């Protein structure tokens, strides 16, 4: 029931997203027809292109066609690859998802304990360390962190393989696609060496990406834990003599999770945005790197398709966050 309601609530966002991507590609300054006709075109061929693209029709009509195409999953053709944008994107999506999820896991695994420790001992060394890490992490551009790590860990120390893609394909063959996630597919394939190789390729980009997302997570964890630890019900738990572990995790952390889950939207926005930059740095064959080459080649359809796909992904992730919050908080379930 509540799932349906949350789904319904996501619809206006999706509609807005579709309108904006349409406007970005059809209604703004610059003449797509002139652009698609190429630099050598004359007025006649531009008009010809305009007609075939349907750009001579009124905006609402164009929007109608746009919706029809969308419904068919048709985002146009990429100029650079010559392939349908949809299949280009879908083919590269797992690489991006794997990277983003890995970064999310790293960010949570570091930020949550850091925030909890800082909140347990406010103004202690651990707290100052947390604050410093968070402030510095928020100031380092992801792409710069990525480059620094590559320079230090690959070039100087040789601890990781050359940062070019998901797997060194000279020595390893990519696993047959099941989930599209190399870390999972290599294991399903029983190829432990390839798994290790894929992991060592993934670590640097994931850590670089995670650093930036850690800041809001750690800050919120600390703040929410401080509030929770100072709350009446934690005092009750202490007065009842519950063990410290129980008080911290079952009582304080569980209620703090609500606020923490609520910043996940922002965290995803950071991750998906920075993903583009990180893929560029690490030669990661995902949709971000695809979009960057499309932008540079002025590959219109590909860029718009990318923006739309990212936005839909983001709306879905936010939906998942909402559902998670509902699962945690019985009060929300009760309201409906």
């Amino acid at each position, binding site marked *: 029931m509540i799932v349906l309601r949350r789904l319904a609530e996501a619809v206006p966002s999706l509609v807005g997203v579709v309108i904006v991507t349409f406007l970005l590609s059809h209604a703004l300054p610059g003449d797509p027809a002139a652009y698609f006709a190429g630099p050598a075109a004359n007025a006649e061929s531009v008009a010809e292109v305009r007609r075939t693209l349907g750009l001579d029709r009124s905006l609402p009509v164009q929007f109608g066609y746009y919706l029809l195409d969308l419904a068919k999953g048709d985002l146009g053709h990429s100029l650079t690859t010559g392939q349908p944008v949809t299949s280009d994107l879908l083919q590269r999506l797992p690489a991006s998802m794997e990277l983003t999820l890995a970064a999310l896991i790293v960010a949570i695994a570091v930020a949550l304990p850091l925030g909890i420790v800082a909140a347990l001992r406010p103004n202690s060394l651990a707290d100052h360390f947390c604050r410093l890490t968070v402030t510095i992490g928020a100031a380092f551009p992801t792409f710069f962190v990525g480059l620094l790590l590559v320079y230090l860990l690959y070039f100087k120390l040789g601890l990781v393989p050359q940062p070019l893609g998901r797997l060194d394909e000279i020595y390893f063959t990519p696993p047959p696609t099941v989930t599209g996630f190399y870390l999972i597919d290599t294991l399903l394939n029983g190829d432990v060496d390839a798994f290790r190789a894929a992991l060592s390729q993934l670590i640097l980009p994931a850590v670089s990406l995670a650093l930036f997302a850690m800041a809001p997570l750690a800050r919120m964890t600390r703040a929410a834990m401080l509030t929770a630890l100072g*709350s*009446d*019900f934690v*005092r*009750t*738990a*202490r*007065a*009842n*003599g*519950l*063990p410290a572990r*129980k008080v911290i995790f*079952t*009582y304080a952390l*569980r*209620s703090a999770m*609500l606020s923490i889950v609520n910043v996940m939207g922002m965290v995803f926005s950071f991750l998906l945005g920075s993903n583009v930059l990180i893929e560029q740095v690490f030669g990661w064959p995902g949709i971000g790197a695809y979009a960057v080459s499309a932008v540079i080649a002025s590959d219109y359809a590909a860029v718009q398709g990318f923006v739309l796909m990212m936005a839909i992904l983001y709306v879905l992730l936010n939906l998942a966050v909402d559902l998670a919050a509902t699962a*945690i*908080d*019985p*009060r929300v379930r*009760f309201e409906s």
Partner: protein
Amino acid sequence: MKAGLMRATHPAEAAAAHGVPLLEVDRLTLDFATRGGRVKALDQVGFTLDRGQILGLVGESGSGKSVTAFAIMDLLDQAARIETGQIRFTGIDLLARKRRALKELRGREIAMIFQSPRTALHPIRKVGHQIEDVLRAHSSVPPGLRRQKAIEALERVRIPDPARRYEAYPFELSGGMCQRVMIAMALSADPSLLIADEPTTGLDVTTQAVIMDLIRDLVRESGMSVLLITHDLAMAGEYCDRIAVMHAGHIVETAPAHLLLREPAHPYSAKLIAATPAKAASIEALAAIPGNLPDLRQPQPPCRFSTRCERHRPDCDQPPLDAARLGQDHLVLCRHPL
């Protein structure tokens, strides 16, 4: 090490056997470090509580009642510093004991319930599970039986349909129901002392009486002692055996409840009685006590009530001021008692 605390010989029984009171707070003095200076929250606070008794700790808001309770429970926040004094439970000084041993007492021997019960329970955990958390911490009830025990605990505080309430979240229950749940939790380890910090504040008048009757009945059933903290002197008079009146970090008067209400010796006690609706002759007499509590960050005269006192005389500000014994069980901190 824990001779007085073993479950086999119930500490309260052991204490009674030796003629030691269950709880003695002795010359407890305590500060808070704040930005604006040290808040001298408690000064030479002392009282005793015998087995099976209900002692009322009464005073207006801010007089230090909760701080006293938190000191007993070891729930003070980090800004607090205990200067001097002892808190003896079954004759053993809790302040001298190691922290670990103190934690063992919490919830097991000394339990506490709070005001605003709806926020004092975990907002997103089923109340039944919250009771089980306490059971798990203090007793060897096998996991399979905990649910049954939790339901029995709810039954004991007379919650109707306890099996269904077990599944409820605090927001689904009324304030009175939440207070019963909190009492059920507090009593689940059969403590010998219950500290109730304004347990009925925020509840409506009928529910207040129901909760207080419940506490009194539970005391009679189990023989535990209660430290009842309240700002309502009339309520304390009705439910307590003895009353300690607190003002600005001082215990200003201790006496059996009926005696204190009939013949208060301290001017502050008299003002409190005049301010209770039941005793007030008219609406005008229900006037609040003049003046405010003194700012405890400033140096205080020996009598912290002197600036508010109508009977103030020059020698009141002469140190030292010690509690005077008016009767066998009647102490007052005043040079010129009524």
